């Protein structure tokens, strides 16, 4: 039986964490921490969860304590945002390389400076190469759903990688939406009992974590991380299918929204996908063949599936909510271009940088993108292929 709730994205994340009830949660308690952890702290104070809740002096320590707990064999979680993720950086890589299945909600917000606390993807895009799986959420429902799935994905024996569940700051985190949640017993059964591969607390079978790993074996351990990431797509698909059987809401790595016969396709992540779907519906009603390719899993990135999804497109617009300074366009744009290389594709592709520091993206903006794309079919990618939406020129 589903429970229908009205929650902000932050409260939806805290609700998922309450039901997951991890063994250990370590968190930095002040900004850039969000209300997600505030709400979870209430669950701790009210005795709703059994989790050991550790308040630490920085995000560097939050991730360090989470790594320590996970190495000890605990199901461990934390949450962060923006500059908090930046301060965790060193340990974010360590969590992945020690193969600790930590799940972390990240509320996407701009990195300073100048100081800004509003939405963009520069925080999580910056650590796209850290070895974490990244699932981007379109709304509060997906925040909840992705967190419950992330536990199963991270802890799968073939994967054993940490997972970031990201969602757009303020746009999702502070906006109330109606969503369906599982009953507690169902959610507990779904996440199941965590049986760690190694545990520092298991004195019957003692192991060492984090030894020096030099020229002789470091490279082999990196290769193993590649293998974990390669195993992840099948696991994400399987977990998404099983979650669909349980809830009626199946998930995949990508979502093809009216792309099957689309001439013009926009690619986006996060809450902008909701805005884009509305515009796609409006323009479809006008007889325009437009569609949206939503990337839910940015890591692992599914280049073959992306290329397959874009086969029929005559013009492609890639929306990036972050900048990769000095590179040819934003991070999503580069992945799309790389995916299409060798796919026998000479479709024009334009990159649209948008929404930095919380700059609004409206249905009008998305419509303008489609209108610009409409002029492109049959011609090569234009010279001015990196464009900015909603910027005062």
């Amino acid at each position: 039986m589903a429970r229908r709730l009205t929650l902000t994205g932050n409260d939806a994340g805290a609700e998922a964490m309450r039901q997951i009830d991890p063994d250990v949660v370590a968190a930095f308690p002040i900004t850039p921490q969000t209300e997600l952890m505030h709400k979870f702290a209430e669950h701790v104070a009210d005795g709703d969860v059994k989790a050991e809740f550790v308040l630490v002096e920085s995000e560097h320590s939050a991730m360090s304590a989470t790594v320590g707990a996970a190495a000890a064999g605990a199901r461990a979680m934390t949450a962060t945002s923006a500059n908090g993720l930046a301060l965790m950086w060193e340990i974010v890589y360590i969590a992945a390389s020690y193969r600790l299945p930590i799940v972390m909600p990240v509320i996407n917000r701009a990195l300073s400076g100048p100081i800004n606390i509003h939405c963009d993807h520069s925080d999580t895009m910056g650590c796209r190469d850290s070895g974490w799986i990244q699932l981007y959420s379109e709304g509060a429902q997906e925040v909840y759903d992705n967190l419950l799935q992330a536990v199963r994905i991270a802890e799968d024996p073939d994967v054993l990688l940490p997972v970031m569940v990201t969602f757009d700051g303020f746009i999702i985190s502070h906006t109330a939406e109606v969503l369906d949640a599982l009953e507690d017993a169902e959610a507990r059964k779904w996440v199941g009992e965590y049986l760690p591969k190694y545990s520092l607390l298991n004195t019957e079978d003692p192991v060492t974590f984090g030894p020096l790993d030099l020229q002789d074996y470091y490279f082999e351990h990196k290769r193993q991380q590649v293998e974990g990431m390669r195993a992840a797509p099948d696991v994400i698909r399987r977990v998404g299918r099983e979650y669909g059987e349980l809830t009626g809401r199946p998930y995949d790595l990508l979502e093809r929204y009216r792309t099957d016969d689309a001439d013009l396709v926009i690619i986006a992540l996060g809450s902008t996908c909701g805005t884009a779907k509305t515009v796609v519906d409006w323009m479809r009603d006008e007889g325009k063949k437009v569609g949206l390719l939503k990337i839910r899993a940015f890591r692992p990135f599914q280049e073959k599936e992306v290329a397959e999804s874009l086969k029929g497109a005559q013009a492609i617009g890639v929306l990036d909510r972050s900048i990769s300074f000095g590179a040819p366009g934003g991070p999503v744009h580069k992945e799309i271009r790389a995916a299409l290389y060798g796919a026998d594709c000479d479709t024009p592709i334009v990159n649209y940088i948008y929404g930095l520091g919380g700059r609004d993206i409206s249905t009008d903006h998305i419509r303008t993108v489609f209108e610009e794309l409409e002029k492109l079919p049959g011609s090569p990618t234009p010279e001015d292929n990196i464009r900015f939406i909603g910027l005062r020129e």
Partner: protein
Amino acid sequence: MSEKTWKEIPIGGVIEDAGNAVTYETGSWRTYRPIWFADRCIQCLRCWIACPDSAIVTEDGKVTGVDYEHCKGCGICSFECPVDPKAIEMKLETDVEE
């Protein structure tokens, strides 16, 4: 040394074989060698407690010498030694080698 492939080693750099540091000899790192003088030693075991590499050798609770295959020559044992003259003195390896 036969090195294993990425498929043959535990993930995450975990060492499954506890206590295998004993097979890794670190004595060659040493610049200064601790020389233990049995006649000065009062068997307080401070050196044994303080040694970060468990390189103070004991038998039946008594110091009997230093494990030179693992001692890195940090000198903590000599620093902690409370007797005067010290029961452990640090000597340059190049002075004691021959």
